[in-house]
C-alpha cells in the first residue's frame, strides 16, 4: 500500500515516514501541494496524509484536486492548530478523519489502520454487491 505524506515541515515528513514504514507501508513524501499533485500522478497512492496549513497552496486545495482527479482516495487531515471550523471544512471536503499534531507513533498508526479498515469494508461491500450481481 502506497501512502503519500504532504507537509511543509521536513521533521513531520521524516517522523511519518519512520512510523508508517515500520508499519509496512510504502511511504512517499511531498513538501508542497505542487509536489504532491505530481507524486499522485506518478504513483497513485492508496492513502493521503495531508497537513492543512501550508504556504502557497494549502491542504484544502489539494483535497479538492484529489476529489476531482482521484475520487475514492482516503485522506487523513492533520494540523497543529485545529479549530472546529477547519475540522468541519476538511471533513466536508471528503477527509476520512482528522488527527491533531503532535501525535505519538501509536496514535498515527491506529488512525491510518482504522481508516484503511473502514475503507476496505466499504470496498468489500461494494465487491459483494458486484459479486451478487453475477
Amino acid at each position, binding site marked *: 500500500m502506497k501512502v503519500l505524506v504532504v507537509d511543509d515541515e521536513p521533521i*513531520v515528513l521524516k517522523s511519518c515516514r519512520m512510523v508508517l514504514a515500520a508499519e509496512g507501508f510504502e511511504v512517499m513524501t511531498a513538501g508542497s501541494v505542487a509536489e504532491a499533485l505530481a507524486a499522485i500522478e506518478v504513483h497513485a497512492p492508496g492513502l493521503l496524509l495531508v497537513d492543512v*496549513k501550508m504556504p502557497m497552496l494549502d491542504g484544502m486545495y489539494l483535497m479538492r484536486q484529489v476529489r476531482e482527479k482521484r475520487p475514492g482516495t482516503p485522506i487523513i487531515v492533520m494540523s497543529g*492548530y485545529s479549530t472546529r471550523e477547519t475540522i468541519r471544512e476538511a471533513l466536508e471536503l471528503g477527509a476520512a478523519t482528522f488527527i491533531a499534531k*503532535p501525535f505519538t507513533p501509536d496514535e498515527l498508526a491506529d488512525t491510518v489502520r482504522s481508516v484503511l479498515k473502514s475503507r476496505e469494508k466499504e470496498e468489500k461491500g461494494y465487491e459483494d454487491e458486484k459479486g451478487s450481481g453475477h
Partner: protein
Amino acid sequence: MTSLALILRREGGGGFFVLYSTRSKLIAGFLGVSLLVAAVSLFIGVRILDQHVFGEARNRVRQDLNAVSEMYLTRVRHIKTSLSITTLGFAFISSLREKNAAELVLRLERMAKLADLDFAGIVLEDGGTLCRIGPNSFPAAGASLENPIARPVLDSRIPVSGTLVLDSDFLIAENPYLAERARIPFTVGDDPALRSGKEEKSGMVVAAAVPVFDGNLLIGVLYGGMLLNRSETLVDTVRGTVFQGETYKGRSVGTATIFLGDARISTNVMTADGQRALGTRVSPEVREHVLGKGKLWTDRAFVFSDWYITAYRPIEDISGQRVGMLYVGVLEDKYEDIRRETLSVYILITVAGMLLAVGLGYLVANRISAPIRRLINASQQVGEGSLTPELGPPEKGEIGVLQKTFREMVAAVGRQRATSEAHIIHSQKQASVGRLAAGVAHEINNPLTGVLTYTHMLLRRTDLAPEIRSDLQTIVEATDRVRKIVKGLLDFSRQTKLDPEPTDINRLVTSSIALVEYQALVKGVAIKFNPGESLPELIVDRSQIQSVLINIIINALDATDPGGAIRVFTAAGLSSRDVGRKGVEITVADTGCGIPSENLDKLFEPFFTTKAIGQGTGLGLAVSLGIVQRHGGRIRVQSEIGKGSRFFIWLPAGGKAEHESAGG
C-alpha cells in the same frame, strides 16, 4: 437644579458669570418686591393723606365760610337793629315831626358812631332827603337823588336790610369822602366784558332802612349802612376770630375777601409788597361758577401769589341780584408741607427698604452661591481627573442634597472607571496572550511531533539498556507535559464559535461528574450532586460547558484532602447584574484549603497557578471564564482559608442576551 446644570454645561468654565447672574437675579427679585410694596404703600398713603388732610382742610374752609357769612349777616342785622332802636325814641320822633334837622343830625351822628356806620340819613315820605351825617348834611329840597335803600321802605312800609351796590353819583351826594374811598383801580385782568372803566367807582354796602311812624302815620325813613370798599373791619375780624391770627412762615394762614363783581374790594390777601390786594380779580372759572351759576366753590385755587384751599359763595343784594362774592381761603402751604414731609418719610423708608433688599439679596445670594461655586470647582476638579474633589462643609437643604448626590456620582464614576480599566487591561492581556499562544502552539507542534515519534520509536527497540529506556521514558513524560501546556494555550486562545443547543443542565452536570468520579475515588474524596428542580432550559455549547465543569471540579479535587467532600448543586437563580434575568447557578463547593483573598482577583488570569510546577498550566480557569462569558454568564468565587471554596457559575436561561453578543 436642572436649569443650573444646563447653565453650567453651556457656560463651561465661566462659572463666576453664572453665579453673578444668579446673585443679580436674586437682588433684582428682592428689589422688585420692595419697589412694588413701596409703590403700593406710597399710592395708598398719598390717597389717605389727600383724603384726610386736604378733605379736612376743605371741610374747615367750608365751615369758616359759613362762619364768615354768619358774621356778614350779623353785621347787617346789627345795622338794622341799631336803626330800629333809634326810631323808637320819643325825642327822635318828635324831632322828625317838627322836622328839626339840626337836632336829628346830632342824634344820627351819635347813632353812627355807636353802630359804626359810614353813612346815615332820613328820607321824608315824598322821597326827598331831610338830613344826613357828613359834610352835606342838609341838602336843598328837591335836589336829592332817588335813594335806593329807602325807596323799598317807602313803598312797603316795612324795614329793609342787606347788601346794595351804590353808584358813585349817589355816594358823592351822600358824602364825597365815601365816594373817594369807594374808588378802587383794577390792577389785574381788566375785562371789558364785565364792566367798563379802569376802576371801580361803585360802592358795595351793607345797609338797612327802617320806617318811622307817628302813630299810624309814616313820617319818614331812617337809613344807614357801612361801605365795604376798603373796609378792614369785617375781613380783619374774620382773621382774628375764625383763624385766630394764625400765621405760617410769616404769612396769615386764613384769608377772607369780599368781592364786588369779580374784583377784590375788601381783603386781607396781601400783595408781594405787603399791600392789600385790592382791585385784583378772581379767576374766570370761579367767576363763572359762583357769580354766573350762583354755586358754592370749594377747591384749591391760586389766589394772587399762593395756593389756597378756598371757598367762595355769592352775595346777593336786597333785590336778589348776585353782586359779589364772599371768600375764605386757607394757605395750602401748611398742608402741602405736611404732605411733603410725609412723602419724604415714605420715600426715605422705601429707599432704606431697597437698600436693605439689595444687601439682603447679596447676602442670601452669597449663601446660596458659595456652596454652588465650590461644587463648580469640584466638578472642574473631577473634569481634570480628580476623584476626591473639595466640596466644602456639608450644607442643609437642597444644596446639601446636591452635594451628597455629587459625591455619590463622583464615587460611581470612580468605581466605573476602575472597573472599565480593569476590564480593558484584562481583555488586552487576554488578546495578546491569545495571539502569542496561537503562534507558539503552531510552531511547537511540528517539532513536538518529531520528538514524540522518535522517542516512541526508540522505546520500541528491544536491545535498549534499562537506564536508557528509563531516560527515554522521562523524555516521553516531559514531552507529554509540553503537549498539555500547548493544548491549554490553544484552548485559551481559541475564540471558537459556540455550538449551542438546548440542554438539560442537571444531565450535563451528572455526565461531567461521571468523568472525574474515578479520580475522586482514587483520592478518597466524595462528590455529591444535588440537582435543583424545575430549572429553566439552557441553550449552551455542551462540550465547552462540560470542560468548564470538569476543570472546576478537578481544581476542587486538587484543593481537597482525602476524606473531604465536594458538593455540586444547581438552582434557578436571578442575575445580580441584570435585574430580573433568569438563569441557572451551578455551585461547586469543596472542603479544601481555601484561596487567600489576595489571590482571588488573579484567579482567572492566564498562567496564574498555585499548583506545583508541572501540576497545572495556569490556564484552566482563564479558559473556563472565557467560555462562560461567551455564554453571557459569570463566575464568582467565595473562599475561606482552611474551610473551603465555592465557585458559582451563573448561566442565563434561553441563551446569550443580544446586547452581550458584541462582547463575545
